[in-house]
């Protein structure tokens, strides 16, 4: 499915999670950019217009997912999907308040992940 061509920014402090996502999404035909901190993610979004979607981890050292989301929303409408190991719903509700578009719980199944991403990407491209 290389025809997708959309570019996804993966933000997670854990290298193996970044690698896993890179592999799953790469196999699905997406272009992947990664960032290991909130700052890095924000810089990459600011300097590039090609990013179609952000996968954002919530619990990160430095500025966390929420703060990063806030920074992003201050200047961009790019869809953001939150990824979290927190089983609870409320942080996610809070993310919606801040402008998140969806969330995915860890651990995730590739199918579910791709389904949600595809849906968002398709809608934003429409």
């Amino acid at each position, binding site marked *: 499915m290389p025809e997708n061509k959309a570019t996804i920014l993966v933000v997670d402090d854990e290298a*193996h*999670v970044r690698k*896993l996502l890179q592999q799953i999404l790469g196999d699905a035909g997406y272009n992947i950019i990664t960032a290991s901190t909130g700052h890095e993610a924000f810089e990459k979004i600011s300097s590039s217009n090609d990013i179609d979607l952000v996968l954002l981890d919530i619990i990160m050292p430095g500025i966390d997912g929420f703060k990063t989301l806030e920074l992003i929303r201050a200047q961009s409408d790019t869809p953001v999907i939150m990824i979290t190991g927190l089983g*609870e719903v*409320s942080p996610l509700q809070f993310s919606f308040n801040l402008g998140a578009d969806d969330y995915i719980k860890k*651990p995730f*199944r590739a199918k579910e992940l791709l389904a949600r991403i595809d849906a968002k990407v398709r809608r934003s491209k429409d």
Partner: protein
Amino acid sequence: MGEPYFLFYQIAMLLSLLASLIVIALTWRYRKAHGAGAMIALAVATFVWALGFLLEANSDTLERQLFFNNIGYLGSMSVPVAWFVFALHYTNGNRLLAGWKVAPFCIIPLVTVILVWTNNLHHLMWYNEHLITSGPFTVTAKNYGTFFWIALVNNYSLIVAGAIMLVRRLFVGAPLYARQAVSLLTAISLPLLWNIIFIFNLVPLPRKDLTPVMFAISGIAMALGLIRFNLFRAVPFAREFLIQQLSEGIFVFDMRHRLIEANPAALVTIGADRSIIGKNIEYLSQFSPVLKQLPIKESKYTELSLTVSGEERFYDLATMPIHNDHNQQVGWLTVLHNVTERKRQELEYKTIIQTTADGFWLADMQGRFLDVNDAYCKLVGYSRSELLKMRISDIEAIEKQDETIKRIANIKKNGKDRFETRHRHKDGRINDVEVSVNYVEVSGGRMFVFIRDITEHKKLQEQLLAQNQLASIGELTAGVAHELNNPLAGIVGFSELLLKRDLPADIKTDLDIINSEAERAAKIVDHLLTFARRQPADKRPTAINEIISKTLELRAYQQKLDNIRTITHFAPDLPEIMANAFQLRQAFLNIIINAEFFMIEAHGKGTLSIRTEKTGEFVRASFTDDGPGILPENMTRLFSPFFTTKEVGKGTGLGLSICHGIISEHGGRIWAESQYGKGATFTVELPVIKTGNEPGEDNNKQR
């Protein structure tokens, strides 16, 4: 035959002189005493009189006899004046005739002395003076002139007046001093009587005045009075003065229940004047309720209240027997002590201890209760009379008896103490109390103790602690679960990726197991999270300012002890938030306690400012302390479970992570800002309640 009589006469006069000198010497010791001056003057005058007589008797010419006779006049004219003044002092009539008011009584004696020395010019005192021989004596015979009789009448008047005063004293005054008065009366009346006999020739004796012999006797009587009856040492004058000045009312009754003395304070109290003195108590009690209550059969202390000039006053009444030197009872003394002021203070003290909501004790240093108030009776369920039979150790529920004894010793040393302990209720319940003691050094030491019931306060604290512990477990589980989810994501994800590859079947089977087992682990974690999640909290529209205020109330007492000042800047009219008040209070409490801890650790005190405001769709509360601040490297881990910079045992590392959990659960967020060394600010944002949740509705409203 004449010789022995002459000798006797001489000896008598010498004795008289000697007696006068003794009286002077004895009295001199007490010269400062009331009336002693007059006594000395009396003795000196007597001495001069007797000396004049002695020298006259030993002279053989008319001129010499007349000269010494004139000297004698100096004494004889002074004696009545000195006597009168003495009697005035001794009977306290001196209040009527003091100082220069006595001067008029000196005029006639003074004129007499002048006339005596100038008799040759006018013969007003005597005439036709010539020597005659009478028995063994050669004496001057003379006819008395007009003024002699004037002087005589004056002298007798003064002497009789003084005598009457003393006699009155004998019968209506204090019988205690009767014997002194008798000795004085004897002393003065002997020379007087003899003088009368001599002048009017009532007894046929040698034509010689034996007055000096009488002087000798009277001098000895006086000296005896002084020595035997402590004329001045008993200091009746000083006592009298004291009694007059005393603010206590004093009544003296004799054995027949007659009122023989009452001082001004006593008279004012019963509203009477001196005319009641001398009256019988049965008669007097018709007029005065006080006198009706005077018990004069036995020693007794009573209290009574009287209305004096329109206001109620309280008196302590003490009646006791009076004894003389020989231990015979001579009367009753009743002292009326005005205790109105003391009663008023007692009433104030009682009102204070009964008004306070705290319990109160007055206890001695053995731990016995001397007084307790109603609030304390209620606190421990014992009645006042039960408690007054008990000791501190009977209700103290924590300390052992020797610990209590040790504490009491410390209180005595330091003057005060303040501590928490527990007191046992009569029904066995245990109350938490805060005790505040002040030691007062009276009657062997007294402890003034206020006891505050802090049972409810403690219960609330413990409840919070338990909630915190429960929340901690939840937080721990959530933290562990989260940490597990990351690796599980790797296992599930990568095994899934591998399964898509072209791999030998047996490897695929194993991979499948890895994948499904990881999925199973993920499910367990998920269950754990569901289990650990705080019960879906019952959330209601809540005012954040109110919650913060309530939280601060919980800390107010401890903050006062720890020198923590809190300043609040609450924005008025903040919109309400959807929240569980208890959870939020717990979150704020953790933030506040954390701030307090670090401020106290850094400089033993601190100021915490709390500000609330509205920012967009959120209500924001910020807590700024002036503690040590947060190291930059610790900033990221602040809200992680088990992260703490407190010493081992001082913190679990869960407080702020619980806060984080609660705030997140409320759809809010919490973060910290700090410049290391300059304190820290923790900010909590919570979403304002929206009127409707559908975005469309929202948009409509905005348009």
